[in-house]
């Protein structure tokens, strides 16, 4: 055991707050701590200016107007707000009750849709085939006169696959249906120009980009109106009440700028990920889940047969590696990840999955360490596995 060592490769779960982000937030904790609604005195105006500067910066980086960016407490709230809001306004307007999504959405979207289902909405789930990518023609086919919303995530959190957002938005618009995307895993990692893509609403979250947890945003295209999720003092142009998280907004802007600006870091991450993919694939009975081309450079998802992911993660933890799995055992549902199952993988393969999600802070040397330790851990679990025993026996018989 190498208790001293710490290799964090679970950046799709959450990230370390970067030093520059902490530095940027700090003045809003102890100096310009005013309430942005208190515009009658300097300290309030300073907070307001910081908030609006952050909004402007974010909107510029995303290719939209500052007035189209609303801060939220995170990705989940943004997902809930957009989906429930659009559904509610369709209901009020006496429009249809049909929503189209994909099979691999985050629970923030899926569970929100399930809630709507109970209220009488009908949900269609687009297939993602074995590569984890939705097909535009399937959306075209799924659209009905009753369809009031298309919501497909930008990039998947487990397998990193990137969806054909532009085509999906175009098809939606052809049918005059608003297109929402949960871009929590994509923002900061891909070059996204909202206007060019024609997105109507988009959710993002800071803590995947090295801000503290508890800040996110919803982009809503100008003119797209839907009810608020949270009522009150009328902040965020009356659309999201609650005293604004000024430091969080500042953090989000800085983190997004750094993430988008670091092209070098992205190439480094890609190289590390590819190196890892190549070497982990050498472990027998392993397979990479999800398309390798249309995929976030940060993400690798490998399944190892005959073992179960929870044990793998626990062994890796013992040697200081923080990673995650889509195994059933890591959840309370006893069902393996819906994302891996959507790829058509049998349950037993889903159980043995390992997700590694990198950041530019990781090093090539860490990749070697991971390769060594994953190889060790998989071997160790297989040596305990009755399934592996069976495999070996069957091979003996065959010989």
């Amino acid at each position, binding site marked *: 055991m190498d208790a001293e060592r710490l290799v964090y490769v679970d950046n799709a779960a959450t990230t370390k707050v970067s030093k520059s982000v902490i530095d940027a937030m700090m003045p809003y904790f102890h100096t310009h701590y005013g309430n942005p609604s208190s515009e009658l005195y300097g300290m309030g105006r300073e907070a307001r200016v910081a908030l609006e500067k952050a909004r402007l910066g974010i909107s510029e980086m995303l290719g939209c107007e500052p007035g189209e960016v609303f801060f939220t407490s995170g990705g989940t709230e943004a997902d809930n707000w957009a989906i429930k809001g659009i559904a509610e306004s369709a209901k009020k307007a006496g429009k249809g009750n049909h929503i189209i999504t994909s099979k691999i959405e985050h629970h923030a979207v899926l569970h929100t849709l399930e809630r709507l289902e109970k209220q009488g909405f009908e949900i269609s789930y687009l297939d993602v085939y074995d590569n984890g990518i939705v097909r535009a023609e399937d959306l075209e086919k799924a659209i009905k006169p009753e369809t009031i919303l298309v919501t497909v995530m930008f990039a998947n959190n487990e397998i990193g696959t990137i969806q054909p957002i532009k085509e999906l938005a175009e098809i939606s618009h052809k049918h005059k249906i608003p297109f929402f995307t949960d871009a929590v895993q994509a923002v900061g990692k891909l070059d996204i120009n909202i206007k060019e893509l024609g997105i109507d609403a988009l959710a993002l979250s800071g803590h995947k980009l090295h801000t503290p947890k508890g800040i996110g945003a919803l982009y809503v295209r100008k003119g797209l109106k839907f009810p608020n999720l949270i009522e009150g003092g009328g902040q965020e142009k009356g659309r999201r009440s609650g005293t604004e998280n000024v430091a969080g907004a500042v953090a989000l802007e800085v983190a997004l700028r750094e993430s988008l600006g670091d092209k070098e870091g992205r190439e480094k991450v890609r190289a590390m990920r590819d190196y890892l993919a190549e070497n982990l694939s050498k472990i027998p009975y392993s397979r990479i889940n999800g398309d390798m081309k249309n995929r976030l450079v940060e993400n690798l998802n490998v399944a190892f047969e005959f073992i179960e992911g929870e044990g793998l993660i626990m062994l890796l933890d013992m040697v200081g590696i923080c990673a995650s799995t889509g195994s059933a*055992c890591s959840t309370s549902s006893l069902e393996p990840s819906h994302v891996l199952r959507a790829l058509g993988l049998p349950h037993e393969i889903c159980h043995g999955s390992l997700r590694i999600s990198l950041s530019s802070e990781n090093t090539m040397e860490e990749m070697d360490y991971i390769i060594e330790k994953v190889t060790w851990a998989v071997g160790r679990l297989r040596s305990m596995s*009755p399934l592996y025993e069976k495999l070996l026996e069957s091979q003996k018989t065959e010989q």
Partner: protein
Amino acid sequence: MYTEKVMDHFANPRNVGEIENADGVGEVGNAKCGDIMKIYLKIDNDVVSDVKFKTFGCGAAIATSSMATELIKGKSISEVEKLTNKAVVEALGGLPAVKVHCSVLAEEAVKAALADYYTKIGRDTSSLNTCDGCCGACGSHDHGDH
């Protein structure tokens, strides 16, 4: 989430392996559910003189298998018959609620191995009340307390 005992039995599982020409072998669970436990028993004079296990499953599955083997090693088969999942959970200092089914599986695996032994030697297995199901899924009988 896991107690130190669970972590210890996961990190250093006791009695991993196979026994060639075992007197009783039991396997329960299935890969789809994510847990398979296989227990090998060596029985001399109605006493478990050796026991080994192999487990495909989560940390708790490995730890409960390990603990179950420890609990029965050197015990008479009448004592082994009385093994409960509760005893395994207690010996581990507790398990998260969603993991209690692993202890049930461990109990079942031991009973299945014992049943195999009984069948081999022509003894009645009805006292064992075995099952080879996927416990999280079957829902067909109640093991109390979980």
